[in-house]
């Protein structure tokens, strides 16, 4: 990969991560008031600050690298405006709104008075990344604690002002009131003329969901008006003075190496800067077209190597599993052999999973600027602090000399964990001595980003005559471990993940490998039920002990009207579901197969989703329905095609994504569990749709489709 010194690992759960976090409290305190004006700043440490971050991988990680305990801060200005800080990024999942609701709720201020500063490594607390549906479950409690601490501090300030004991005072409606005397002071008044910074312990408890007043409501997106007017600036929209446009020369195929190089003609072009640094070749110019022309004028010869195609990938994955990889995962309970021996029905299935692309509409982009040896990069990434650390390492500057800022993004879907565009823009900007923007083309995005890993999944199971699972053997080759464990009760099981070395870049995807594992498992479960002549819903419920999983299946079944009788030729009904990352999903689909053309149409979808207490019902609804629509692409037709190190369908014309005509009627039932802390919703709602569609196709046609995508060219029955 040109310009990228970081070897890419599969899946964030396996990321190497040993970066030093930011800890500049003293500097921060000064900068805080300089930046935000006088007022009251509160910094908190969560007692479980380590656990609040993503689980740290075991290798290369030392206790002294841990973030300092301070992990959340907010500021109350003299005008009563509240600014809260989070290292999370907004990618369309609505945290800018939902986290502000959380702060307003806990601080007892109107929603409109809270502003979120997100994903700026110079201003916000260290954060591992906006990955794994962690923003809601980790940031909600952290921000609640800092807001509760701030509220407490304000009460203390008022008590001092009035010279009364704090115990009787009450904080509500952005003011502290003394019920005994009836007097009150607005937060703005309490903050006036102060530069008070306090580092407080963040104590439980915070306001329970049942008592929320601002959180739990469908507040519209705070920046909606900027979106509909085109005023919101995504990374590629930034135009600092003197901006040059950068382009990077891509090899003709993966693993190609540069054999000869001549940039004389390109360098002679007016206003053009050409950089060659190892394998990295790029140009910057006053316009994108001039940069492109400069690249075109560079004479290169490449040595290419023959590589396998998408037609051979599955046999390759089976043959090349790394037997001794440390990433191999193996878990066993009871004896599968015994379980199978005592089974009344047994079934073996093999499932294949194609590489797919995230294809965010905003492709990778970065704007980089060097000033006095310090680097500032605006970029669309889900991991701003990791990108900062990579930039520091690549350019041999201290982390404190690098600032990464992430403008709210044209989404990511798990596809923007890397620093590619940031490194490229920064390298060109250093040579140019001016700010440089690098904005990947659609073809670059489809080719040089990374893919959801392809995989082969083999499942062997047995059930007793009462329909209870007795044995479960599960092997996943390469696609990953998320949701690899079955949520169904099976006494005898063996579950293994076999990583496979492969040269194409593969990595995280929305839901990670859960999209693959839930598809395979739920397809297999359906096939077992059908073979044993048990209703597929009844079969699942028989084998579920988790009441939350049961609840979503039952809720969706009721709205869908399961079991349904077929009323038309080509009609079919199917279901699928599961649990991952604290969320529970069950999805039912009705499909119609046109016998003549083989076209599969999804007619109606009912899904039930539960992720604890709901912070913003309308935002959640938008996410859940969106996940189903996006999931339909991977279910039915998305697949990356490749041959000899080239992606052969790197365009929206040849890589089909869901469009308006594909979208069925979708009903989403949101189960609000006010007794449970909120979990994330970005990923898990996507998991049920692929198996639901596949199982419905079987119901309609008797054809069992075990691979994703199910029907890229329709069914030829």
């Amino acid at each position, binding site marked *: 990969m040109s310009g990228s010194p970081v070897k890419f690992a599969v899946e964030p759960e396996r990321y190497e991560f040993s970066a030093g976090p930011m800890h500049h409290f003293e500097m921060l305190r000064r900068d805080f008031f300089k930046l935000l004006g006088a007022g009251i700043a509160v910094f908190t440490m969560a007692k479980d600050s380590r656990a609040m971050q993503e689980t740290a991988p075991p290798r290369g990680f030392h206790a002294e690298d841990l973030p300092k305990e301070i992990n959340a801060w907010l500021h109350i200005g003299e005008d009563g405006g509240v600014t809260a800080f989070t290292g999370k990024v907004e*990618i*369309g*999942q*609505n945290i800018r709104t939902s986290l502000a609701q959380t702060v307003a709720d806990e601080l007892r201020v109107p929603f409109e008075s809270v502003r979120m500063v997100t994903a700026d490594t110079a201003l916000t607390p260290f954060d591992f990344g906006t990955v794994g549906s962690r923003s809601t479950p980790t940031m909600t409690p952290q921000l609640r604690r800092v807001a509760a601490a701030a509220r407490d501090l304000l009460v203390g300030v008022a008590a001092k002002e009035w010279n009364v004991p704090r115990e009787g005072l009450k904080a509500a409606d952005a003011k502290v009131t003394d019920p005994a005397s009836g007097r009150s002071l607005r937060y703005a008044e309490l903050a006036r003329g102060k530069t008070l910074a306090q580092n407080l312990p963040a104590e439980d408890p915070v306001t329970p969901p049942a008592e929320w007043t601002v959180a739990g409501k469908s507040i*519209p*997106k705070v920046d*909606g*008006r900027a*979106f*509909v*007017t*085109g*005023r*919101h*600036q*995504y990374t*590629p*929209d930034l*135009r600092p003075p003197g901006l040059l*446009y950068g382009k990077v020369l891509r090899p003709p195929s993966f693993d190609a190496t540069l054999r000869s190089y001549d940039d004389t003609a390109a360098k002679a072009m007016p206003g053009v800067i050409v950089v060659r640094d190892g394998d990295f070749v790029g140009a910057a110019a006053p*316009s*994108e*077209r001039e940069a492109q022309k400069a690249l075109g004028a560079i004479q290169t010869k490449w040595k290419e190597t023959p590589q396998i195609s998408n037609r051979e990938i599955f046999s390759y994955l089976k043959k090349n599993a790394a037997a001794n990889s440390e990433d191999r995962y193996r878990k066993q309970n009871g004896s599968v052999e015994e379980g199978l021996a005592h089974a009344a029905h047994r079934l073996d299935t093999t499932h294949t999973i194609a590489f797919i692309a995230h*294809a*965010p*509409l*905003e*492709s990778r982009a970065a704007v980089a600027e060097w000033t006095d040896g310090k680097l500032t990069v605006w970029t669309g990434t889900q991991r701003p602090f990791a990108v900062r650390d990579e930039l520091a390492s690549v350019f041999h500057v201290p982390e404190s000399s690098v600032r990464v800022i992430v403008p*709210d*993004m*044209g*989404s990511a*879907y798990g596809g923007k964990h890397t620093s590619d565009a940031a490194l490229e823009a920064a390298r060109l900007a250093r040579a140019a001595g001016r700010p440089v923007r690098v*904005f990947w*083309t*659609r073809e670059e995005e489809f080719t040089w980003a990374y893919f959801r890993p392809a995989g082969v999944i083999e499942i062997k199971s047995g059930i007793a005559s009462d329909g209870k699972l007795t044995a479960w053997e599960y092997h996943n080759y390469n696609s990953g471990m998320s949701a690899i464990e079955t949520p169904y009760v099976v006494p005898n099981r063996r579950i293994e993940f076999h990583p496979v070395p492969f040269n194409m870049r593969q990595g995280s995807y929305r839901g990670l490998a859960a999209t693959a594992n839930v598809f395979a498992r739920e397809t297999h479960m359906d096939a077992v039920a059908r073979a044993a002549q048990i209703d597929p819903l009844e079969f699942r419920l028989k084998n579920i002990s988790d009441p939350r999983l049961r609840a979503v299946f039952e809720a969706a079944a009721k709205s869908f009207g399961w079991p349904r009788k077929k009323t038309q030729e080509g009609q079919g009904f199917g279901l699928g579901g599961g649990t991952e990352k604290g969320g529970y999903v069950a999805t039912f689909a009705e499909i119609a197969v046109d016998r003549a053309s083989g076209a599969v149409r999804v007619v109606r979808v009912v899904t039930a989703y539960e992720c604890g207490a709901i912070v913003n019902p*309308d935002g959640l609804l*938008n*996410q859940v*329905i*969106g*996940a*189903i*629509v*996006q999931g339909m692409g991977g279910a039915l037709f998305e697949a990356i095609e490749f041959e000899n190190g080239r992606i052969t369908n790197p*365009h*929206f*014309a040849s890589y089909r*994504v*869901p*469009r*308006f*005509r594909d*979208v069925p009627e*979708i009903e989403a039932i949101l189960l609000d569990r006010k007794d449970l802390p909120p979990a994330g919703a970005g990923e898990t709602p996507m998991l049920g749709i692929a198996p639901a569609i596949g199982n419905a196709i079987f119901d309609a046609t008797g054809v069992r489709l075990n691979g994703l995508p199910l029907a890229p060219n329709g069914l030829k029955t």
Partner: protein
Amino acid sequence: MPIELEVNGKRYPVHYDPDTPLLYVLRDEFGLTGTKYGCGEGQCGACTVLIGSAPRRSCQISVSAAAAKPITTIEGLEKDGRLHPVQQAFLDAGAFQCAYCTPGMIMSSVGLLQGNANPSSAEIVQFLQGNVCRCGTHARIVDAIHQAAKAMQEHGR
């Protein structure tokens, strides 16, 4: 004599090559970055603008070919601080997630409603088939267009 474009009622001289796609001139030369690059291939609709009253992919038309008629971009819809009914309807329906496709969706929808004041859902779907939304907010977009059509008829726009 450089080419001049009329964009949102204002005249701009163009210094880029006349064969440059309109999109790059709007964004990089004029700073009208509300119009988005999504694919550069006319396959996603993110760069849609109105040329005259017709929605067109600005990545697929050269600046010289676009110069004949007035151009409207997303920045030109709001009048005196009042949103266009289609913008208002998108806002009211919460018809976006990351919103990167939104300007293109809105411009296409404005174009649709100029030719068909009261489109059916099927007509909307047909018209927007070339606009990609990766976040999956299609159903809300269709709802927003119905709302906008209603509002425009009521207010005689």
